[in-house]
């Protein structure tokens, strides 16, 4: 049923269609604008759930393929397709996109422009996960940068850093990273052209070619710089906490939730898949940097007082787990990295939604200003608890599955580093529990008595994201088997035996 329709294009362009409709509405029509934004993201969410269900796991590989030749002399096609790695991330995008619309329900100024930019942003992020063409991948990746900038400077907050500074820092960091990435892509394209004699941007076709080792190392390094910056790899993470602090709630949710994951996804889908030997050479370095993420960012968290900075640095720290999972380059660890990206996305989005809501009402994000909020705002408190406990990897919630799988996979390759990484969990527990305790529990503070608890549209992010956190933790088998089908294919195609052998002999740290 689904295979006859261009269902991926529909999912992808639904938010854009919503944005186009909003463009033609007068800006005073606030309610229709919000409803259209909510409807279009809901349709995308529903379609991606359908795709999740309808994807044939026994068959594996790219499905729901669409392919239209686009720029012949560059070998570019408008090519879409999803597999076990991209479906969870597509689902994640739409879960967060839909929640982000509701988290922005109270936006007061320039509502029309806000939702147009937000919808473009959601489509842009989704496009990177859906396409199987390198050119289109990069195109979607860069499409999101400018809407984010505009969203930050127009609707952001200037609590600790000015929003202009935060927006520009975020933008320039990501763009400079993308310059390296694009150089790598062009080098790859030209090299592939000279090897095969036909220009092609198709990721699978590029992966089928044999590139010389030196070229692979060099190009992978360029790409790792680009993707690493996006994933806030230590020491290129400085944009992340400032950017999240300056950004409006919806942007923090999407940015921390999905946009960062483009980095991890790109490392797997493009880096490892096309340049396996390069990946293998650089992986130990990435693993070391990953420890920098995990430990360094977690220690910074210990001394932060601003809620957004705590979650911002904690997301930098968590990306360390994803990175070490990717660096270990085996089936288990890559599975773990993908599920961790999904889990962290849902958790971070929920966290930012709760913080955004609290900030909107109390106009402060300082931990010391709060206390005993569970008395006044029990629903908000349960959202905070859920996100916090997921963040520290409580068994029974989806993040535990990710961290556990990563450690199992990574331990085989990097023993000492993995042990240090596990210690990072202790630090996470310290700062998360302390923050939750300071903000939510303790004696009731009367100055916050007038705060309203979550209600109406504000509940949507909590319900949608919260139920995914629990569902994924209690019953991870389904999504894990899906991810495994995708990762397995990549690991097999790039020659698992080859990689295993070299790493087992040469990867002893």
């Amino acid at each position, binding site marked *: 049923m689904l295979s006859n329709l261009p269902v991926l294009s529909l999912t992808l362009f639904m938010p854009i269609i919503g944005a186009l409709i909003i463009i033609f509405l007068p800006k005073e029509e606030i309610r229709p604008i919000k409803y259209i934004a909510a409807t279009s993201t809901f349709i995308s969410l529903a379609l991606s759930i359908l795709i999740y269900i309808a994807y044939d796991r026994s068959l594996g590989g790219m499905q729901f393929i669409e392919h239209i030749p686009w*720029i012949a002399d560059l070998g570019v096609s408008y090519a879409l397709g999803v597999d076990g790695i991209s479906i969870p991330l597509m689902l994640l995008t739409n879960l967060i996109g839909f929640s982000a619309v509701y988290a922005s329900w109270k936006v007061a100024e320039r509502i029309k422009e806000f939702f147009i930019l937000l919808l473009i942003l959601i489509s842009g992020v989704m496009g990177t996960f859906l396409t199987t063409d390198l*050119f289109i991948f990069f*195109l979607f990746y860069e*499409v999101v940068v400018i809407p984010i900038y505009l969203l930050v*400077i127009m609707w952001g907050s200037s609590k600790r850093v000015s929003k202009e500074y935060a927006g520009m820092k975020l*933008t320039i960091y990501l763009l400079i990273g*993308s310059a390296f990435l694009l*150089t790598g892509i062009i080098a790859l394209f030209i090299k592939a052209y000279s090897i095969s004699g036909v220009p092609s941007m198709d990721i699978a076709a590029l992966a089928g070619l044999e590139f010389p080792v030196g070229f692979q190392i060099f190009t992978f390094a360029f790409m790792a710089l680009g993707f690493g910056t996006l994933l806030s790899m230590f020491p290129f993470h400085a944009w992340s906490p400032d950017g999240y602090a300056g950004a409006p709630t919806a942007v923090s949710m999407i940015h921390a939730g999905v946009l960062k994951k483009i980095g991890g996804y790109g490392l797997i889908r493009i880096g490892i898949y096309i340049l396996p030997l390069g990946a293998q050479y650089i992986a130990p370095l990435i693993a070391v940097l990953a420890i920098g993420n995990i430990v360094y960012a977690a220690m910074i968290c210990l001394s932060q007082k601003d809620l957004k900075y705590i979650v911002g640095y904690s997301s930098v720290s968590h990306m360390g787990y994803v990175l070490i999972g990717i660096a270990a380059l085996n089936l288990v660890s890559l599975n773990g990295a993908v599920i961790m990206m999904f889990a962290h996305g849902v958790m971070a989005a929920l966290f930012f939604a709760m913080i955004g809501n609290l900030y909107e009402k109390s106009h402060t994000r300082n931990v010391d200003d709060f206390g005993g909020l569970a008395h006044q705002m029990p629903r908000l408190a349960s959202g905070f608890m859920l996100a916090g406990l997921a963040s520290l990897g409580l068994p029974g919630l989806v993040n535990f599955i990710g961290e556990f799988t990563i450690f199992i996979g990574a331990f085989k390759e990097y023993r000492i580093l993995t042990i240090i990484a596990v210690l990072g969990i202790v630090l996470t527990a310290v700062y998360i529990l302390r923050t939750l305790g300071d903000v939510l529990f303790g004696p009731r503070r009367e100055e916050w008595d007038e705060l309203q608890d979550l209600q109406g549209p504000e509940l949507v992010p909590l319900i949608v994201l919260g139920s995914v956190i629990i569902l994924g933790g209690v019953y991870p088998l389904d999504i894990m088997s899906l991810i495994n089908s995708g990762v397995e294919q990549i690991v097999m195609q790039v020659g698992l035996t080859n990689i295993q052998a070299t790493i087992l002999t040469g990867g002893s740290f």
Partner: protein
Amino acid sequence: MSFNWLSTEIIVALIGILLLVLSSGLNVRGKEILTKAAVASMFLVLLNAIVLFSREQSLFNGVYVVDSFGNFFKILFLLAVILVLLSSLQYIKRFKEKICEFVSLMIFAAMGMIIMVSAGDLITLYVGMELMTISFYILSAFLLQNQFSAEAGLKYLVLGAISSAVLLFGMSLIYAVTGTTVISEIAVRLRTEPALIAGVVMMLAGFGFKIAAVPFHMWVPDIYEGSPIPVTTFLAVGSKAAGFAAFLRVFVLALPLAQFNWSIYMAVIAALTMVAGNLIAIVQTDVKRLLAYSSIAQAGYILAGLAAANTYGLKGMLFYAMLYVFSTTGAFAVTTAVEVDTGSTGMEAFAGLSRRSPMLAAIMTICMLSLAGIPPLAGFVGKFYLFSGAVQSGYLWLALIGLIMSMVSVYYYLSLTRIMYIGESASDAPINPGLETRLALWICLLATVFIGIYPAPLSGLAQAAIKIFI
């Protein structure tokens, strides 16, 4: 030989002359109508040029050639002059009874460009270039009451004359070595001699002046800032494209890389131009100056294609030159509309533009982002072609510098965007740029977006145009 081969040139010249002849005795209102008629008839010439795109013929023993390369640029110049005039019909009302002279000179400048790109001979090329440049001398000083404009005219005259002399001297040295001025024959008779090197370097300086490559760019900021905005725009898009076309034809056809490797010099100049243009643009506070420095940087990107001198590189040059017309004219057209309303082109004049006129702010942002190479806009695809060419020729470092500099350019483009979107404006009255400007703006916007999303038609056209080089 039939009229048909030169129909574009003849009709353009006729329009220019008729405009001068018919305008005598008319009042200001009549002259304004006459200029509109001239723009409309230029549009017909454009259609004619598009229809006749694929014709090829060598005329006057190879002195003048009609080929798809030249035809591509003819279309470009006609488009540029039409868009510039359309977007400035409000602006040029200030010239009152001199309005027809102004438009006529613009048309003659376009005529010079057309001759320049169709020249098969160095002397013809020079004559075309002088027709263009002399028109610009007058045009840049057209606001004679304004001291900046007068200064711009004088500066351009002095510096332009020197650069013409250098170019001409270079050509004469080439003639001394080869005994011919016909471009296609120079390659055959080339001998490596010191005089040849001196000649090539001098031509490089002469053309470098026209395209404003570093270190021959010093004239650009003052003249772009002082000249009337339509002249600045046409200098930026037309004169520069003509310089590139002539540069390309002479260097690729007459000086084969196998015999004289100028590629590495181009690569170095391209890198310098990108770096200097972008870094200096960051500190500018006047939008005209900002766009002037950004246009220097743009020349650097296009030069990277010439340094590559392969299919992707050359195709990228043509592709980029065309999209540059739309994006730059769009940005300047918004600047014109703001200038007509506020009387200033300083950044503060743009404050709050998104509230006063959301369309102008959006078009300015999109055109600038296209110049910065952000997808899905035209500039991204153009840069992809150019830097693919550079990488293919082994200049990976050039591609890296170019792409990093593109991202640096986002900084100053976004600074202006920030002012437009969150700055506070003195007045909240909407800006109404007038029907013709709106038309030009929409053409620029749609072309910028369309070429970015579906580049195949333009890249096909560029492919057809460069087949004389491959």
